């Protein structure tokens, strides 16, 4: 199935007149000497011959094979993303067992100009892991060995296909905390996390993967395997190439192994869910948290009123008694002139001394209560209650997805102006006569990262012109405040077209040059990332 009208590797080439070098390089990503192709039956036979477990590793759904309904159904799952907005047309899924198999596959695809889409847990929200066309899907799921964790440095080494939750459990058993934590941890894989530079709940405390990844093994487009040191934390010898792959979304190389430095497992954890009447109060909470909780503060998450209502309706009963208790705050004014909406803040602390941490938490809550920055709140006093409070936060995304069609945005905004964007978007939507839309905002407020989800309740289809109008409204509101249109979800397919508008020409040129250096035949994840 050829997609018409999209500027990508597959569309017909214009013959370009001679231009200055800079222009030629800018167009490099969508102009190449030879077109990419999808896999053929000969390719499938070749793969079957070089892989150690061909029955497991080669999932061939092409009509020329005797593909059973089971195989076709299975391939279909790989071809759709989590949001169900992106559908690829791949007929071939490869599931390599080792790095050398990945290398052989890529070498062959490089020589034969066959496009490859790497895929981890398929939990991405920008269509980055879904084939653009008929590319081979390279699933890393079978490469899921955890090798070891160093008891002194906390450096955990594992395959890229390891599921994040398993890494958490393994680290915990050994007295460490895996520094990355996101809602999809039950399914997402670390290779994908690294390739998208995932942020998550504990970004505030432990920082970005750019800091915590200390080593990596990557297979380049031509099959060459690149390894960077993985047993020490500090290594200033040469350009830190691994940084390029973090967040490159599989366009520069395929991550096959990762080494991540894990902090010691904190033994004392506290979680509170607070209710504020206004964003100014939320800012008080943020500042007070930094002052009173200090070094033990590990996460601050915001959830707005619209979102909480969806969580209560569609959230599978998570903490329902808790939500009912907190969903009748006096702040919901019946006076239409005074529209107030409560804002919920989850605050988590992690430290190593239960007594002093509880004292800090107590002093934090007392300050807030006495200054009236919070109207109400609950403090979890055992693990079960902590999990329930986090479950409320983690069910925000699935709850709105169950409610209707969601226009998803993941933006960075200066903290002071965080809620202004949602308020402005709401106003503009009404001005444009776009009704029946709920603007739901939740996110990592301490990082200035807002997940703005605009939901058309009860309707599950996308209307292209509405979608475009909404995108324009949200992005212009963010850009005028000098924010970012993709804080942590990445570019994938969904935000590619905006890069030209928000990035300098010089930056785009260099990005293209880097892409050409690492992947001169442009086989890695075509149709994504580079405009």
């Amino acid at each position, binding site marked *: 199935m050829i997609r018409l009208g999209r500027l990508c590797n597959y569309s017909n080439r214009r013959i370009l007149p001679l231009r200055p070098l800079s222009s030629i390089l800018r167009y490099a990503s969508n102009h190449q000497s030879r077109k990419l192709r999808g896999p053929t039956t000969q390719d499938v036979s070749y793969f079957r011959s070089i892989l150690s477990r061909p029955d*497991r590793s080669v999932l061939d759904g092409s009509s020329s094979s005797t593909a059973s309904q089971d195989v076709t159904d299975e391939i279909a799952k790989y071809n759709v993303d989590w949001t169900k907005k992106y559908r690829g047309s791949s007929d071939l899924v490869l599931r390599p067992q080792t790095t050398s198999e990945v290398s052989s596959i890529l070498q062959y695809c490089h020589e034969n100009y066959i496009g490859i889409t790497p895929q981890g847990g398929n939990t991405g929200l920008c269509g980055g892991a879904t084939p653009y066309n008929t590319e081979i899907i390279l699933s890393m799921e079978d490469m899921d060995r955890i090798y070891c964790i160093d008891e002194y440095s906390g450096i955990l080494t594992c395959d890229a296909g390891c599921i994040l939750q398993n890494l958490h459990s393994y680290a*915990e058993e050994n007295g460490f905390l895996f520094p990355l934590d996101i809602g999809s941890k039950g399914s997402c894989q670390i290779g994908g996390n690294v390739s998208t530079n995932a942020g998550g709940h504990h970004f505030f405390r432990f920082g970005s993967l750019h800091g915590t990844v200390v080593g990596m093994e990557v297979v380049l487009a031509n099959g060459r395997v690149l390894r960077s040191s993985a047993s020490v934390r500090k290594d200033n010898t040469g350009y830190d190439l691994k940084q390029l792959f973090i967040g490159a979304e599989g366009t520069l190389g395929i991550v096959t192994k990762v080494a991540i430095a894990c902090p010691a497992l904190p*033994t004392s954890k506290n979680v509170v869910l607070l209710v504020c009447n206004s964003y100014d109060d939320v800012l008080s909470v943020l500042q007070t948290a930094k002052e009173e909780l200090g070094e033990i503060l590990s996460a601050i998450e915001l959830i707005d009123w619209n979102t909480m209502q969806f969580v209560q309706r569609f959230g599978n009963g998570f903490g329902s*008694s808790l939500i009912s*208790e907190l969903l009748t705050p006096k702040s919901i004014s019946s006076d239409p002139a005074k529209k107030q909406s409560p804002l919920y803040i989850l605050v988590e602390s992690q430290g190593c001394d239960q007594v002093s941490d509880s004292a800090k938490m107590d002093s934090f809550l007392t300050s807030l209560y006495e200054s009236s920055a919070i109207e*109400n709140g609950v403090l979890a*006093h*055992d*693990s079960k209650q902590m999990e329930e409070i986090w479950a409320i936060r983690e069910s925000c995304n699935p709850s709105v997805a169950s409610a209707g069609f969601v226009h998803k945005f993941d933006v960075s905004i200066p903290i002071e102006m965080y809620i202004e964007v949602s308020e402005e978007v709401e106003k503009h939507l009404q001005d444009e006569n776009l009704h029946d839309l709920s603007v739901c905002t939740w996110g990592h407020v301490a990082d200035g990262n807002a997940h703005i989800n605009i939901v058309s309740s009860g309707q599950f289809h996308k209307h292209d012109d509405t979608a475009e109008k909404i995108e324009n409204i949200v992005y212009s509101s963010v850009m005028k405040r000098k924010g970012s249109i993709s804080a942590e979800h990445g570019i994938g397919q969904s935000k590619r077209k905006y890069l030209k508008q928000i990035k300098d020409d010089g930056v785009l040129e260099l990005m293209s040059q880097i892409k050409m250096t690492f992947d001169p035949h442009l086989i890695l994840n075509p149709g994504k990332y580079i405009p």
Partner: protein
Amino acid sequence: MKKILVPVKRVIDYAQKIRVDPSKGAEGVQLKNVKMSMNPFCEIAVEEAIQLKEKTKAEVVAISVGPKQCTETIRTALAMGADRGIHVETKPDVRGDYINLQPWAIASLLKGIVEREDGVDLILLGKQSIDSDCGQTGPLLAGLLNAPQATFAAKIEAGDDGSFTVERETDAGTETIKLNSSVKPAVITCDLRLNTPRYPTMPNIMKAKKKKVETISLEDMVKELGLDLDEVLTPKNEVVEVYEPPPRKEGELVGSIDELLGKLKEKGLVA
């Protein structure tokens, strides 16, 4: 109803991975740097007491026996709605997880405290603690007090005449017992399905700070109650050995149904 007593136990949090140090023998379970919380069944007991208080205006007293950190556990009960607390403070090296203090000692102390309090109508306990899993403190206390008792309560109703109607879940079905009002106090132990413990909310957390907690050392309490300290601290049962269960063996990945069948036959699991 005038007064409800709720003993609460501070135990290793249910979600923690238990570590056993084999070199420490019977005291192998590590308690250092491990998250502790109120025993989940005790939480249910506190919740039930608060619900009864809301209906009958009774006073709810939370009691805990353990090291100084137990005041935290009592504060949680106060934040849920209990009115005051009694903390019988033990020396830091005295273990409550069956090594030093065992149900007999606790039940003897609680009996004394019940009599010391005077006017207690009901004692609500968790059916068992998740560290020692004995389930004996409630029944022993009832025996010592000659009190009517119902264990594993899944529903409790307080009658206007001071009686308690308790539903218990058994293998044969639901059993309903009435504890008549003529004998006071009554002892009821609480099971999982009795209720869902509430979260302490901010206004109650703040109020809890002002509520009174009486702290009295184990030695002083024992003296006051006329018990023998040695008797209390010498366990009736000796823990002989503590070890971690053997780790689960990893499963095997097979490539096809035939391979699976072959393996099952090999292991003699299928004919």
